[in-house]
């Protein structure tokens, strides 16, 4: 049984202008010990999914549909009391700009200790201190920095402290939402390495959310590409990157500048962002799509399986010769 199985999840926000359909019909599963990445531009719904998994959505958000099965339990059906027991102990999250989550007036070591003590009241202080030392070692912060305040830490160190805090209770699943944005590229690569090593050492399952496709490629086994609230392509890392099928995935990969080869994409002006309050009846990407036709604009695309692990939510982008479309 997979550790996490999300089935047809739909989430929306009640705004003054109407009901914003932020996530629409998203399904995915995650096996124990594996890592899954969510890539998409801002507004695509990836952060909303992360927050939904922790049931930390704001008041004006509502889950319209779907199930989130964690170890067989539907997280959407349990009480807040029960969810609280799962949060942090079984599922932990590193939020966007989490570095600012550290309380500036408490020492860093203390804050992590507090996280441990809160979730495990039976533990002794000495034992908790030991755990904190271990965590610091795991994330690569020197032990003597435990008694420092957050402002003494650099951005990269703060982020490591946040990772340590997330791992404090030894969760089975870690959700990381843009953990390396705002960090320099050198620090970013160090943090990503730290995450990879921690995963290996503790067999933590990971959901990695980012707009940076290369970062996700570095860390994750499987990738879900998101656009306007929907998953539009899903597959193993190699499949998605070396043979992308969906026109948006191709556009995304083409936009990413690497040091490997000098790419020169000449993309037309893409137009307005998709209206999520009144989404189009057809494919949400059809307005921007270079190969869309009239059926794309009118009817919702289907899921097409390209391989047992690689599928795409599109009717047009597939080369019929190369794949077997199983509808």
């Amino acid at each position, binding site marked *: 049984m997979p550790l996490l199985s999300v089935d047809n999840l739909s989430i929306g926000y009640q*705004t*003054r202008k109407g009901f914003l359909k932020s996530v629409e019909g998203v399904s995915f599963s995650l096996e124990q010990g594996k890592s899954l990445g969510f890539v998409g531009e801002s*507004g*695509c*719904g*990836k952060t909303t999914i992360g927050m939904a998994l922790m049931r930390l959505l704001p*008041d004006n*958000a509502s889950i319209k549909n779907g199930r989130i099965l964690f170890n067989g339990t539907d997280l959407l059906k349990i009480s807040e009391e029960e969810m609280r027991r799962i949060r942090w102990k079984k599922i932990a999250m590193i939020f966007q700009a989490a570095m600012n989550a550290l309380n500036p007036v408490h020492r860093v070591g203390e804050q992590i200790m507090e996280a441990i003590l809160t979730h495990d009241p039976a533990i002794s202080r000495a034992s908790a201190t030991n755990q904190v030392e271990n965590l610091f070692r795991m994330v690569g912060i020197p032990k003597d920095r435990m008694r420092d305040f957050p402002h003494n830490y650099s951005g990269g160190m703060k982020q490591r402290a946040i990772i340590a805090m997330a791992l404090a209770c030894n969760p089975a699943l870690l959700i990381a939402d843009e953990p390396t944005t705002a960090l320099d590229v050198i620090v970013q690569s160090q943090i990503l390495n730290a995450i990879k090593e921690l995963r290996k050492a503790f067999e933590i399952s990971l959901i990695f959310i980012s707009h940076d496709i290369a970062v996700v490629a570095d860390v994750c086994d499987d990738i879900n590409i998101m656009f306007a609230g929907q998953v539009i392509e899903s597959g193993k890392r190699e499949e998605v990157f070396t043979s992308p099928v969906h026109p948006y995935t191709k556009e995304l990969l083409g936009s990413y500048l690497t040091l490997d080869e000098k790419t020169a994409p000449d993309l037309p002006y893409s137009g307005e962002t998709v209206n999520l309050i009144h989404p189009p009846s057809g494919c949400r990407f059809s307005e921007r799509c270079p190969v869309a036709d009239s059926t794309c604009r009118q009817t919702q695309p289907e899921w097409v399986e390209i391989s047992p692990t690689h599928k795409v939510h599109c009717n047009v982008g597939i080369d019929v010769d190369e794949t077997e479309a199983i509808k």
Partner: protein
Amino acid sequence: MKEPDRDKKYAARSIFSDRFLENWTVFSENLLGKIGLTLLVIFAVMASASFFTPLIDPMYHPMTGVDPDISYSAGPSMRHWLGTDFIGRDILCQLLAGARIAFMVGISAAFMSIFLGTVIGMIAGYSGKVVDTLLMRLADMIMVMPTLLVVLILSSLFGQLNIWIIVLLIALFRWPGVSRVIRAQTLSLKQRPFIEAAKVAGASHFRIIFRHILPNVLPLSLLYMTFRVTSAIIIEAALAFLGFGDPGTVSWGMMLQWVWKTGHMFQAPYWLLPPGICISLLTLAFYMLGRAMEEVLDPRLRKEVGGE
């Protein structure tokens, strides 16, 4: 690819009508705002009614209205819904006239003090260093002075003051509070990239202050105006009550003074209570309005969160 009709709609609107509609929805959802606005409308109706009462019958004039039958303080009756004052003038008419004066004084004094405070605050915040220090020290000195006391002293020196002089004095003493806030806002705006962009484009200081900073501090100024109105009304009432008001105007404070001076304080509740209640309610109404506006202006106070 685009929808031309939707874009044409944008061309016709201006920021103020679009934003105004959006802000109006927030405002009207706020309970305090609704109560405050209702009260204000009631008082505004009262104030406008005060123009018409003498036309019904000359005895309904607040200052000169003389009832041929009653020349003393009498309780409420069919002819005088709130009764009469010590020389037989209709109390209700006085109350209505007082509403008019309260609005006039309140809004003029508030407007003047906000105008001064905003300009000085912007200049201080933008200039920094010497100019800023000088202006703020001046503001401190004025802020420390008790407005009421100084006006009292001035009127005892110069005799009875005209209502407009009183308004001016209130404005001159009340601008420091606003200027501090506007200065703080200006200081933070100064750092914003669009101000730097204006500098790089070659804008003069004057242009930056009045074309870029002013529209951004104006909402805050307007907010403070609502608070200033309350203090202006109270100061005027206090002055009138203490006998230093303009004897030619009928304000609620003046009414209270008459009650007191003519010894009717405990004998004529129909005369004593209405002006006092009106002062409280009107200042409360403006205050509530201000609080509701605060929610409109500060998106952080709003109870709604959008998507990503």
